[in-house]
């Protein structure tokens, strides 16, 4: 993955989470917001970029009481601010 593709992927993950209006989104839901060539990425590759966004404070893992192995993520206020500054929210 090129640095530019990686950047696009991170932004697309954020915009997808922003579209969920406060709800958390799992890997399958996140794939809906990706173009065809990025939808084919392994869950691990997407999760790695989500981990980066978590480190930046833009994304949080949703705490789930049931089936926590099916992880879901939510955008944070900092993530929304970032998108707004980029003109993407």
């Amino acid at each position: 993955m090129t640095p530019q593709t990686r950047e696009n992927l991170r932004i697309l993950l954020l915009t997808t989470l922003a579209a969920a209006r406060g709800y958390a989104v799992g890997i399958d839901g996140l794939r809906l917001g990706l173009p065809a060539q990025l939808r084919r990425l392994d869950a691990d590759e997407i999760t790695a970029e989500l981990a980066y966004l978590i480190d930046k404070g833009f994304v949080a893992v949703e705490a789930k009481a049931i089936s926590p192995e099916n992880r879901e993520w939510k955008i944070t206020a900092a993530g929304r601010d970032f998108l707004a500054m980029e003109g993407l929210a």
Partner: protein
Amino acid sequence: MKPRSDSKLKILPDDRQEQIFAWACTPKTEEHPGGLAYAREQLAADGLKVSMSTLSEFVSWYGLQQRFARAASRADQAMELARSRNPHMSPEAVRDLAQTVFTLEALDAKDPETFVSLEHLKLAQDSARTKAEFEREKIEISKRKLSLQEARTRAASAVQEAGKRLEVTPEVLKEILSAVDRRLMGEA
């Protein structure tokens, strides 16, 4: 910070975005190319030039916004319903329920505009196919009716001639004619 190329469409008013999305979902016709090319033409006519990739990205983004908005709306409704019907349900359980509804709706939902366009297209194709098939069938039936009538006339005439030659009684002739007719009708 430099604005992204696709953001110029995303910051347009809602009704304008809806219009662009509708153009992009328009099927191809004899008058226009339909799809993204049609949306691009319409935008250009309005003085807004965008690349196909920008437009494509916008359409994907807009579709996702709509899809998630509908899912969130259904989840909010489920949350309200759960609260009103089960006042003892914990806020966490209500929230979990709503989250589940959101996830299911978001993954199951179809893009209605695309769906409707495809359905219209399919319907038009089916309708055209059905009409053409119906017309073909009508012509075939008429041909078969005509051909059968001619065969019956020829057979009746031949039987009557043979009957006269063989001096067959009218009753027997009638029976033979009836048998020939039944045979012809059975083959039809």
